[in-house]
């Protein structure tokens, strides 16, 4: 499976992989990379322009913008990673169970999904945070709760479509146990589809987290988060537009690189999936 | 081109559009003739270039392919010449395609398909509505109006195949191209469709280009047969002669494979 070369075939996807790697490195090694403490308030240095000490200047509390951006990557990437893992686990369990068990279990689980899907996601997330209170953990819980149903449904669809393929029937005729069929023949192709979906959704999740934080319903200040930074900077829109531009750029670049990566991943994985199943 | 000929193809070569014809030819040196009231059969394995040849006649090749050499001559005028395509497609030559369910647009009724096609050929629908009904009745539809109001997915493959035939009748085409007309149909429907094509040939004096991989279909309908193999015509003969004295090894193999499956001598089945 020459998967990696196929992923890196196009220059655009190479670029996206590079960007995504840089962001991941920044997130992992933020304390090593960032020149200053992101929460170090120095009121006498507030709203300074770029200098050798503060590469991108300082914000209204004199905190180093560059360091805050790097720590922001950590918050965004970390929260989205947690969200994706939780959603995948939840969606996977529910979807596989519903798809493979069928009958009443399926009907019940799918009605549950239907109920969750009748809510506009962002608004339900806002509401849940309103109940649970702000903070990173609650944001993660709220977004997981608003998105899992969609995944569960997709996964159920995949399982159903794979379940009736001829090679599964052949395995059954050959006497393979149910468990073995699920583990060997259903989970791997379903998982490949999921990876594609999840990568395409990372960008969306980042936008959700930062959007909620921007409204003051997400990560609470002083945590360096990009949405919070934009929200903090809005009062200086007329005097210091840079403060709003940098975090916005970071969100944009991160989301874009994951979107391109998702597309490239789909192009690279899909023929593999087709070959496996045809 | 003799006066009785409705289609003549000379030295047709089809190749990839962006590569030199010499090393990318999918079909080459195909020459054939279809006469009025006669059927020319084109037989070969899948991938031998039969369907591409048909598409070339209608100028319907996919964008990445083109006719790099040769001529396709319909009754009046050459394909790819100044004659507008819409005057050839449907009007002079009609197609019957395989897997008919996928050939109709599922969001429009059968009636819409028929009327739209008539309109495209400048025929007044209101004036022709009775002709549509009688044509459908002629093709064995008891209740033409119900058929017209039905959506393609509500009809069976055989019924849709007959709808395709009805278009050929309505537009009074001179050439009927039947591309695997009986694949995917059950035997009774198959025989019905073949009977129908035979009738069109004899009663309406149409020329038929019959593409198939089924020797019994050829035996039943065709007057002349061309055997295609790897993009070339390797043998061409009247049907009785081909079955009785195949020249090429490939043709012999085809015939003997068929005999070993069905165990009968096809030459006896060939119509006189």
């Amino acid at each position, binding site marked *: 499976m020459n998967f990696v070369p196929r992923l890196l075939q196009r220059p655009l996807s190479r670029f996206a992989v590079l960007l995504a790697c840089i962001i991941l490195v920044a997130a992992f090694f933020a304390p090593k990379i960032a020149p200053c403490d992101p929460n170090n308030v120095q009121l006498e240095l507030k709203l300074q322009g770029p200098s050798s000490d503060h590469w991108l200047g300082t914000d209204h509390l004199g905190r180093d913008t560059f360091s805050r951006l790097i720590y922001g990557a950590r918050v965004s990437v970390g929260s989205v990673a947690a969200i994706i893992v939780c959603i995948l686990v939840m969606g996977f369990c529910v979807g596989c169970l519903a798809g493979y068990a069928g009958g009443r279990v399926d009907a019940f689980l799918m*009605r549950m999904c239907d109920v969750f899907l009748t809510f506009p996601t962002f608004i339900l997330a806002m509401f849940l945070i309103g109940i649970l209170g702000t903070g990173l953990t609650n944001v993660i819980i709220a977004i997981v709760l608003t998105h899992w149903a969609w995944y569960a449904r997709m996964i159920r669809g995949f399982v159903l479509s794979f379940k009736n393929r001829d090679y599964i029937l052949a395995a059954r005729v050959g006497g393979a146990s149910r468990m073995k069929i699920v583990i060997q023949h259903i989970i791997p192709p379903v998982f490949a589809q999921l990876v594609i979906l999840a990568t395409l959704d990372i960008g969306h999740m980042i936008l959700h987290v930062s959007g909620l934080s921007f409204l003051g319903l997400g990560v609470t200040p002083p945590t360096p988060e990009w949405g919070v930074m934009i929200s903090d900077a809005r009062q200086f829109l007329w005097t210091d537009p840079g403060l709003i531009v940098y975090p916005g750029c970071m969100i944009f670049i991160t989301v874009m690189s994951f979107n391109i990566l998702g597309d490239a991943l789909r192009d690279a994985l899909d023929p593999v999936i087709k070959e496996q199943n045809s | 081109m003799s006066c009785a000929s409705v289609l003549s193809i000379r030295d047709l070569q089809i190749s990839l559009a962006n590569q030199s014809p010499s090393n990318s030819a999918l079909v080459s040196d195909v020459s054939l003739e279809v006469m009025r009231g006669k059927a020319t059969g084109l037989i070969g394995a899948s991938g031998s270039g039969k369907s591409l040849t048909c598409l070339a006649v209608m100028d319907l090749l996919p964008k990445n392919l083109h006719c790099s050499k040769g001529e396709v001559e319909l009754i009046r005028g050459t394909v790819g010449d100044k004659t507008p395509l819409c005057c050839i497609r449907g009007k002079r030559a009609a197609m019957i395609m395989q897997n008919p369910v996928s*050939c109709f647009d599922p969001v429009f009724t059968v009636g819409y398909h028929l009327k739209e096609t008539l309109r495209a050929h400048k025929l007044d629908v209101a004036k022709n509505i009775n002709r549509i009904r009688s044509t459908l009745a002629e093709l064995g539809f008891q209740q033409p109006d119900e058929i017209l109001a039905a*959506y393609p997915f509500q009809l069976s493959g055989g019924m849709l195949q007959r709808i395709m035939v009805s278009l050929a009748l309505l537009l009074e085409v001179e050439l009927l191209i039947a591309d695997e007309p009986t694949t995917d149909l059950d035997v009774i429907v198959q025989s019905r469709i073949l009977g129908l094509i035979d009738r069109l040939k004899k009663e309406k004096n149409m020329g038929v280009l019959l593409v198939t991989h089924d020797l019994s279909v050829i035996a039943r309908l065709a007057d002349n047969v061309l055997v295609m193999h790897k993009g070339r015509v390797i043998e061409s003969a009247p049907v009785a002669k081909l079955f009785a004295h195949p020249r090429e090894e490939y043709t012999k193999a085809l015939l003997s494979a068929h005999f070993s499956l069905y165990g009968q001598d096809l030459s006896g089945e060939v119509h006189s």
Partner: protein
Amino acid sequence: MLHFIFRRLLLLIPILFTVSVLVFLILRLGPNDPALSYLRLSQIPPTDEALATAREFLGLNKPLLVQYLDWAGRALRLDFGLSYVTHRPVLAEILYYLPATLELAGVSLLLTLLVSIPLGMWSALNKDCWPDHMTRAFAFFGVSMPNFWMGFLLVTVFSVWLHWLPPMGRGGISHLIMPAVSLALMSISINIRLIRASMLENLHTRSVLYARARGLRERTVIGVHVFKNSLIPVITAIGMHVGELLGGAVVVESIFSWPGVGRFAVSSIYNRDYPVMQCFLLLMVVIFVLCNLLVDICYAAIDPRIRLAGEGNR
């Protein structure tokens, strides 16, 4: 068709019922005591005595089921209680702000369809040529752009630098342009990609080949057959876009000080003004569900396979 609509309306009842139970339960079983919020917002010191009175007053002492029935019964009569902050009927307050939000979301939806359908088609018909590359780049840009940041960029350029458009508030069309654009950008981009993909898929079906073989003009083949078939996924996606737009409107309203229901809802969430939150969420669900119903009806109107599914084949 009427049968279809009726069946879909009936299906709504159990779903809305479950939604109402869920909305009620989340609030009641959440970690916070509504009585406490009530006292805080009424600026009464939360003594034990005051808490007890507030619980009594809000009916929090009754069994959960009775509370739900009370609440749902009143909700059915469109009585969602009084706001803890303003002490006015919640529904009236929300309905006061709602038109502004609907205006913003509606214009954005319109903008989405008007821009994305032609662009998506243009892109598909010129696959791998410059219009396609440009449109795809634009779509990529759009799906990656946070709407709140887009809003600020627009304000910076068109209000701060160029002084062309008012930076905030609701008024004429000039007030609407920037909020609608920043709200619609995401949906436009998603839709462009969707339309392009479905056009490309439909361009290569056998029914298109046969349509050409029948001698239809290229204009008819694409404008009628390919277009109508490509519209089906687009219509299904409108439901999803409505959800996105309602959610996005909350953010965009906050940027442009748009006097809509979203801003009101955010402040009620800050305050934990529970009756407002409940009413807002239910209202949004109802709007969302009704839009989806409308979408399903359009879908069935376009696609006979859906419409005739329940009636059995001939």
